[in-house]
């Protein structure tokens, strides 16, 4: 997935086009709210897509970082009297630092040990959020103060739709550049042959670590945005099911595809809203869909469609 300037423009252009079209087609506050949620989830999925696509590693506890970002944003103002935005910044640093500390020894191992380690990490974060009731508010969740920027009270679905859309575009732009950077190239070389890459002097573990830290910070950013947007967080943001949802977004959209992560996020955010009509069957249908997608559209939606298009052009 070498991303030349053309691909970059194509991805960013299509994201911009869609984000401009959505408010025209679905102007109701409810729809804008759902769309803002899609953009927020897409930021987290993007980071994970980099980790899975570039580094070939999977995190089964990525919601833990989401939870760190969200709760930092909620707890900073409450306990330390900090500005929500500064608290969110602290959350990003904390998530990145944690990823660095955990990832450094583990990414030196071969295989999917990162998946196991992150699985444990995610569950521990969730457990702390549920158990430390005096600090986190426990399972009932906690209020998040309204964001104010230089006296401007940030409110309303339309405003948040704009903010989250801009953040997503920036995140996608950074991700595309990362794919093109020396780290991106080193990691792509590693896909072809890890042995060959290390023989020519690529520090495999270090590059994987860079991507893991970035993926963690992306998730924390999404968590912080969600906290500010929703103005209420519960430990569910860090739950195991959330982690699985994030991985599923990436895989359904197309592993390693930037656009795919956004498509996957859109699908998995909108679908449950539609499925609430079937309330009782929500989980069964979600599980069934995951299996069907994995079995019949294994490479994911975006690479699948791209493959179809090239084949047609070749014919």
């Amino acid at each position, binding site marked *: 997935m070498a991303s030349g300037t053309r691909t970059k423009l194509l991805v960013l252009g299509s994201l911009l086009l869609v984000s401009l079209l959505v408010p025209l087609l679905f102007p109701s506050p409810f729809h804008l709210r759902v769309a803002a949620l899609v953009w927020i989830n897409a930021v987290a999925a993007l980071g994970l897509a980099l980790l899975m696509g570039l580094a070939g590693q*999977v995190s089964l506890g990525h919601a833990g970082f989401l939870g760190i970002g969200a709760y930092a944003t909620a707890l900073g103002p409450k306990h330390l009297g900090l500005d929500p935005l500064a608290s969110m910044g602290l959350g990003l640093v904390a998530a990145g630092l944690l990823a660095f500390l955990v990832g450094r020894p583990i990414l030196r191992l071969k295989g999917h040990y990162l998946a196991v380690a992150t699985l444990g990490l995610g*569950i521990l974060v969730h457990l702390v959020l549920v158990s430390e009731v005096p600090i986190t508010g426990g399972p009932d969740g906690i209020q998040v103060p309204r964001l104010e920027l230089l006296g401007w009270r940030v409110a309303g679905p339309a405003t948040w739709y704009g903010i989250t859309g801009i953040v997503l575009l920036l995140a996608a732009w950074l991700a595309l550049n990362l794919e093109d950077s020396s780290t991106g190239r080193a990691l792509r070389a590693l896909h072809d042959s890890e042995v060959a890459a290390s023989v020519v002097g690529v520090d495999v573990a270090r590059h994987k670590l860079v991507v893991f830290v970035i993926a963690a910070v992306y998730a924390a950013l999404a968590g912080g945005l969600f906290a500010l947007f929703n103005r209420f967080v519960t430990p569910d943001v860090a739950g195991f099911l959330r982690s*699985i949802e994030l991985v599923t977004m990436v895989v359904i959209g197309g592993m390693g595809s930037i656009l795919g992560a956004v498509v996957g996020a859109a699908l998995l955010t909108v679908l449950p809203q539609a499925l609430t009509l079937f309330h009782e069957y929500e989980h069964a249908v979600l599980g069934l869909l995951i299996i069907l997608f994995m079995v019949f559209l294994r490479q994911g939606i975006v690479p699948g469609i791209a493959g179809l298009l090239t084949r047609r052009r070749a014919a």
Partner: protein
Amino acid sequence: MAELVQLLFAGLTTGAVYALVALGFTLIFQASEVVNFAQGEFVMLGGMVTVFAFKAGLPLPLAAALAIAVAVTTGLLLHRLAIEPAKGATVVTLIIVTIGASILIRGLAQIVFDKQFHAFPAFTGDEPFRLLGAAILPQSLWVLGGAAAIVFGLWLFMERTLLGKAVRATAANRLAAELVGIDTRLVLALAFAVSAAIGAVGGILVTPITLTSYAVGTILALKGFAAAMLGGIGNPVGAVLGGLVLGLLEAFAAGWISSTYKDGVAFLVILLVLLAMPQGLLGRRAVERV
């Protein structure tokens, strides 16, 4: 002393269930390298089907047999409808398939059964007996004895029967096994069936003590997986040992440190093991030649 024995038995009882789940993980992993996150749902089905069949008037042994049959059928369906069509997919894709399956099974259980907690009576009464000052439930002995019987039976099967040898051959080298005429597809189906049966029996044995509901599968799968990792994934002896160690650690952590963080012990241990002993307690250090 009394407290020590009490915690020891509590730990071994939960540990036995983790060991059974870990054993199921190991069987399927050996035969296919698939990490089956739906493993906990077999335990849930074992407990829930027995509860509802028993409430419908079936005698307990018959209800238990029915539950095992349902779990085995589910395992075979999972293999036939989800794992086999996804053959050749990456490890991550297969993990997600099994997670999807576990969400599906749980979703269906929630519709077919209900969201309440249930139990059926213990096999031989609820009257605890005294051992060195500790109060032990007779059902704890059933769990320990049942788990030991399963481990022994599985060992006999693997070592003494032709089919068991076929399973081990497939685990050692799939291609070579196919070349000597072993039907590896059948072996994998068998692994799913046996894993499901083991999980279901675990669920049946422990339900009188811990109760069961449609949602107990997830955390059991995660802890069973942690136990399997702890013992070194792919190693049956390690799986049993990992399960028991995990159960004991949880019991002692709950008793002596904090019951709030009991559920975190498994995952903290996993993190520490990964950092210090990445191959697990009994795993062999893999050396790769280039």
